[in-house]
């Protein structure tokens, strides 16, 4: 294979498998077919030539012998009888011509001479100005000249309609090749599309397992793989849930014991540490769930009340969350997921800036863009991408003391993908971070 690649790549070797297979099949078939057609043609030509020459030499020799025996006065009556389609006898010296020294002419002359018993030397001349017209001159035994006017007709060993058949056959070849290639390529395309659309969380339609056995086998293997992935994801969530649940009872006990103990700095630290463990467990499971999908259905929500309700929930607990811009209208989305995304943005803003502002607008493509902005330290531009990775922390400015597990934005990112939106972080002019989610 390796040797053929440079060979082909020097030509305009097409990129697609479809074109390649198509070309290979079509060229191969056309070449093979052309070859057999030429062989047939050659064979037919040769046999036709043999028949023609054989007839010519025998007939002509017989005719010469007959004419030679006849008295010169009766020769004229017989001329038409003796003539054939491609040659005719003439009494007389014939037309003036130039001697033809071609191999074909010598061959014809030699054969007629041989058939006539070498009694009549034959001279073959071409008639200038006329293609394919030969005249053979000889002298009969009584001294009178005889001319054989030969008009060799083109040897047509095949019927005139055969070329049309040939064209139709080539067309048939072309169609069959195209169809065969399509048979091979189509399942590949379907497989690629299915892999692209693979979402183990959704119970989407499985790849059709119909078709030829190899295709069905591949489809079955793909579907099995899809199920395995879904199973692994499910297992991941279950493991996290099991850990979380397993930890919860001891943490609860520790928390209660700490509460029962006397007030002391040690007790407060213990309570703080327990809080951190608990938050990690909660965020971990939330992250696993967000990757796994919630199974939440789309609902049509009223944007203004949705944003207001989030802001009010924060305000009611004394947090500085304000709505600075709202658009009227509804959006089709997964409300719980969107609420969680915005809550994570807001929690971040509150953590690092102490206050958050929410604004909603339509962008140029008439999509709803919800932005949560703060006046906190922001994130260095070169780390904005990394900030969406799980467990990301900016150790300098966003240290452990501020709490958080580094999963908030990762969860938001996953959920944004789930609702078919896009998430963007950027630093605001004048300082602070803007976290923006664009709905589908």
């Amino acid at each position: 294979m390796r040797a053929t690649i440079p060979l082909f790549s020097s030509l305009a070797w097409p990129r697609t498998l479809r074109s390649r297979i198509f070309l290979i099949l079509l060229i191969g078939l056309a070449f093979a077919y052309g070859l057999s057609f030429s062989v047939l043609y050659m064979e037919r030509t040769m046999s036709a030539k043999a028949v023609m020459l054989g007839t010519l030499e025998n007939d002509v020799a017989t005719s010469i012998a007959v004419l030679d025996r006849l008295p010169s006065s009766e020769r004229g009556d017989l001329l038409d009888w003796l003539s054939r389609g491609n040659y005719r006898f003439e009494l007389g010296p014939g037309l003036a011509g130039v001697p033809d020294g071609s191999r074909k002419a010598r061959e014809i002359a030699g054969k007629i001479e041989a058939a006539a018993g070498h009694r009549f030397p034959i001279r073959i001349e071409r008639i200038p100005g006329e293609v394919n017209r030969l005249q053979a001159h000889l002298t009969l035994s009584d001294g009178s000249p005889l001319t054989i006017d030969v008009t060799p007709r083109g040897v047509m060993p095949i019927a005139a309609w055969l070329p049309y058949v040939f064209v139709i056959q080539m067309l048939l070849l072309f169609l069959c090749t195209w169809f065969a290639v399509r048979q091979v390529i189509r399942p590949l395309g379907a497989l690629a599309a299915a892999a692209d659309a693979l979402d183990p969380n959704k119970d989407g339609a499985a790849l059709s397992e119909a078709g030829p056995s190899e295709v069905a086998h591949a489809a079955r293997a793909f579907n099995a793989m899809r199920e395995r992935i879904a199973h692994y994801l499910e297992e991941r969530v279950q493991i996290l849930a099991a850990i979380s649940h397993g930890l919860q009872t001891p943490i609860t006990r520790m928390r209660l014991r700490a509460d029962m103990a006397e007030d002391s700095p040690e007790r407060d630290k213990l309570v703080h540490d327990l809080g951190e463990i608990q938050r990690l467990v909660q965020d971990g499971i939330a992250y696993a769930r967000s990757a796994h999908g919630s199974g939440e259905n789309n609902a049509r929500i009223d944007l203004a009340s949705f944003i207001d309700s989030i802001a009010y929930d924060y305000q009611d607990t004394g947090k500085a969350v304000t709505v600075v811009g709202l658009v009227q209208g509804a959006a089709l989305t997964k409300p719980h997921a969107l609420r969680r995304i915005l809550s994570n943005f807001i929690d971040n803003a509150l953590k690092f800036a102490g206050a958050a502002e929410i604004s909603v607008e339509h962008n140029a493509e008439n999509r709803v863009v919800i932005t949560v902005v703060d006046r906190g330290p922001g994130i260095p531009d070169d780390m904005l991408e990394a900030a969406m990775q799980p467990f990301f922390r900016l150790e300098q400015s966003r240290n452990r003391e501020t709490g958080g597990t580094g999963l908030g934005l990762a969860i938001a990112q996953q959920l944004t993908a789930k609702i078919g939106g896009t998430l963007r972080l950027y630093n605001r002019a004048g300082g602070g971070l803007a976290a923006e989610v664009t709905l589908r």
Partner: protein
Amino acid sequence: MDHVDHILVVDDDREIRELVSGYLQKNGLRTSVAADGRQMRSFLDANAVDLIVLDVMMPGDDGLVLCRELRSGRHKAIPILMLTARTDEMDRILGLEMGADDYLAKPFAARELLARIKAVLRRTRMLPPNLQISGAGQLLTFGDWRLDTVARHLLNKEGTAIALSGAEYRLLRVFIDHPQRVLNRDQLLSLTQGRDADLFDRSIDLLVSRLRQRLGDDAREPTYIKTVRSEGYVFSVPVEITELRP
């Protein structure tokens, strides 16, 4: 003579039962414990309790099942405080809709548990009993609106969801559960106090005006929530209850 509130703690973990029970006793409450649904039932058959602290995650009948059972049986008047482990928002809401009066996620601070218990007790004593019990998975229809008690949002005629903040939702539920009855500000306030809202009370009037706004109600001539001068508010439209899920 002083009535000492009797709390039944139902949790499958012995240590948590004892710790909770010990803490509550230290704070002047009477407590009993049960390890599972069977023990809880037999205890309730022989004793009167004022409130049940019920763990959700238990082997056998879990807290949600027990809660529903309590609510549909002869103990339906006993307030329930659920202890939930699940962080998932939907589970919490479902717990509440199963008929729990409040919930607390594990792990919790003992002090908060005590505060919640007292708040629930105060609330249930302050309010007249529910005139209609609305509960899990129901769709409450009134006027032009439907309230989805699982998703906790209003649905307008076109089926668009109008979101409610936690406090708005709780206030609306109080109104819906007590239609045609004047509720004073104290009653409304104690009922709509949210999880962490104790320190930051929104005035009930502000909350009512927000809710009216959500319902498209004109404050001067309200259709749904009417003001009763110097007394409070009354929810003045009938509510129809339909099952959301079979």
